């Protein structure tokens, strides 16, 4: 069977199940099962890529980067859906007035959101890439508005508006790139491979303009400073499973788009442009996000700003052209950030608030969560035993090696500030005094998914370093770049 259709089948089943009103009670477990089966399916499809092959099907194709981000999206979606099966029925019974129809719609839209996120790394055509990213915006906006509260409506509106404007800029940029090679011999193409092959014949001026517009557009979607404005609102107001998908998978999608475009610009002999734009953008994003991390009053907003910081690191990795670090850090960040958002969802449920000053004493009230949250905080901040440390260390090494000393030093400074800010905030949540009555009935099983993710991060940090790097080298070569 066609591998690209195969990937979409199980999410599509979820979409259809969500539309059947009578399944509302069984829906959470059915979706969790579907997404768990999706992991081996995607693994089987992506397996040939690990031996350096590439798959093509019209405007879709799977190369190394495509396979890596398809796997990340699958892991994130599976974790989110399993956690949703544990948490969302309890949330519904707690008195949030959520009808069966809205509940089913959540799953329908999640399925469509996943399919559109799969399409992004697999697109070989700039137009299809744009359509897929626009589709992720349209499908995820209603997810943010799941609770229909005033704050979630405001966040949805901001998200919809800012990302639509961003994506409009990206469309304009895409058109400029298309126009840049339209007069060249052989006519125009929007296939990324065709653009790279004929990159030298493109009009350099229009290509530069096009790249800048695309960077503005996809950068808004990725949350590069100062275009990150929608991100903390959307991530804090969405239900935690949706926040996990937004942070763990959606931000990566926008960065993949930037990676693809920077590939085209590099092939046109303008690697300097990519570096001059992306390296400072990444470094500034890291520093700005770390400063904003200090004065946070909301657990989920804090995690969102930490995502902005990691987007900065990933932008820097793209800027210095280090594909290995880009994939590795995207994977590590997604795993730990999803774990953190899922834990935050549990805390919001049992404490009834996500305001940091009101949270405290998690280690006393629900010890398992306390341990997991503390471990997660260290992982998110990039401390040694976890995978994030390895990838951040490699990124710094590559940045120094690329001669970008100023960027490397400011990133180091940003990472230090972020470490202090995150551990301080989370330390107070875990160790501080219990300030409000806490509902401890929610079960320990809610910590299973986050703990499993943190253990994966630990393993990738400790045991697998050399073989992981070998696999990554193969994946990046399959992507046709260094």
């Amino acid at each position, binding site marked *: 069977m066609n591998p690209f259709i195969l990937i979409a089948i199980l999410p599509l089943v979820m979409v259809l199940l969500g539309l059947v009103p009578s399944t509302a009670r069984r829906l959470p477990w059915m979706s969790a099962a579907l997404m768990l089966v999706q992991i081996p399916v995607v693994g089987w499809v992506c397996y040939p890529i690990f031996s350096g092959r590439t798959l093509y099907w019209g405007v879709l194709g799977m190369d190394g980067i495509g396979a890596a981000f398809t796997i990340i999206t699958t892991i994130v979606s599976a974790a989110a859906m399993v956690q949703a099966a544990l948490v969302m029925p309890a949330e519904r019974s707690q008195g949030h007035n959520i009808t069966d129809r809205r509940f089913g719609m959540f799953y329908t839209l999640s399925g469509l959101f996943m399919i559109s996120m799969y399409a992004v790394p697999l697109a070989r055509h700039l137009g299809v890439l744009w359509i897929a990213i626009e589709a992720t915006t349209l499908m995820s906006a209603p997810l943010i508005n799941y609770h229909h509260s*005033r704050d979630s409506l405001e966040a949805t*509106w901001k998200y919809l508006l800012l990302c*639509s404007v961003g994506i409009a800029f990206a469309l304009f940029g895409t058109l400029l790139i298309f*126009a840049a090679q339209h007069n060249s011999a052989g006519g125009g193409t*929007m296939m990324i491979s065709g653009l790279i092959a004929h990159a030298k014949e493109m009009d350099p001026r229009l290509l530069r303009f096009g790249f800048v517009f695309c960077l503005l557009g996809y950068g808004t979607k990725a949350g590069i400073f100062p275009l990150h404005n929608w991100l903390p609102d959307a991530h804090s107001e969405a239900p935690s499973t949706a926040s996990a998908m937004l942070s763990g998978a959606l931000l990566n999608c926008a960065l993949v788009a930037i990676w693809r475009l920077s590939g085209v610009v590099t092939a046109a002999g303008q690697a300097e442009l990519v570096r001059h734009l992306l390296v400072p953008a990444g470094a500034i994003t890291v520093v700005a996000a770390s400063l904003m991390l200090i004065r946070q009053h909301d657990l989920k907003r804090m995690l969102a700003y930490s995502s902005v910081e990691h987007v900065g690191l990933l932008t820097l990795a793209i800027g210095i052209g280090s594909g290995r670090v880009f994939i590795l850090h995207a994977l590590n960040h997604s795993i730990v950030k999803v774990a953190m958002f899922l834990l935050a969802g549990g805390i919001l449920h049992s404490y009834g608030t996500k305001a940091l000053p009101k949270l405290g004493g998690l280690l006393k009230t629900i010890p398992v969560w306390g341990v997991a949250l503390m471990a997660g905080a260290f992982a998110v901040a990039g401390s040694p035993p976890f995978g994030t440390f390895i990838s951040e260390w490699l990124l710094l090494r590559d940045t120094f090696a690329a001669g970008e000393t100023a960027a490397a030093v400011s990133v180091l400074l940003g990472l230090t500030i972020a470490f202090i800010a995150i551990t301080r905030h989370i330390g107070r949540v875990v160790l501080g005094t219990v300030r409000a009555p806490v509902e401890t009935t929610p079960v320990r099983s809610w910590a299973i998914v986050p703990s499993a993710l943190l253990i994966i991060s630990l393993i990738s940090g400790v045991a697998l370093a050399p073989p992981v790097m070998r696999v990554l080298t193969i994946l990046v070569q399959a992507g046709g770049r260094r």
Partner: protein
Amino acid sequence: MNLSQTDLFAAGAAVVAVWMCGLTRVKTQLWGLVLQAALLSSICARLAMAEHYNHLLVLASAMFVIKAVAIPIFLGRSAASMGITSDRGANVHPTVTLIIGCGLLVIGYFLTPHFEVPAMLNPGSAGMSVALLFIGMLLMITRRLAISQVIGFLTMESGISLYSLTQTRGMPLLLEMIIVFEVLIGVLIAGLVIFRINRSFEHIDVTHMRGLHD
């Protein structure tokens, strides 16, 4: 300077956008959108006739039906159902916006050489599409109602379609059609969100939506 009919239509769309900057009545602004979309679809139809690209006729009719008929009717009905008639503008008075809009039009005209594709039929249109893009952004920034921001976004989108029509030839039809439909879906979702905002805030004034901050 030798202006083709296409260039005149493109300039017309940009002038309509400037005119919209000075308007306060939502209904009149929607008529502005209708005019813009009609001008764009006639450019598309003209290109189809001149170059014998029959597939562009399909696109022209889709653009007309969706952007000049369906979307304005949808937005007009939504506004009527929420009892909204006018947007007095946030921060900047509409007259000032009008003057800034004129300035952007001039800037767009002078930017033309930077964005046009050499040896194409419609040299003047590239700058007009950039002007439309900027004026659309201006409309979004200076209005206070959520529905006016959608109108501004649609103006931006007109600028982009104008560029794609006049400066590139042979964008795949399927792609163009999907983009038009995605705009429609986006407007429908935005309409739904605006409806909910109106229900829970009892207004759609985005300058008064300040619940979320650090």
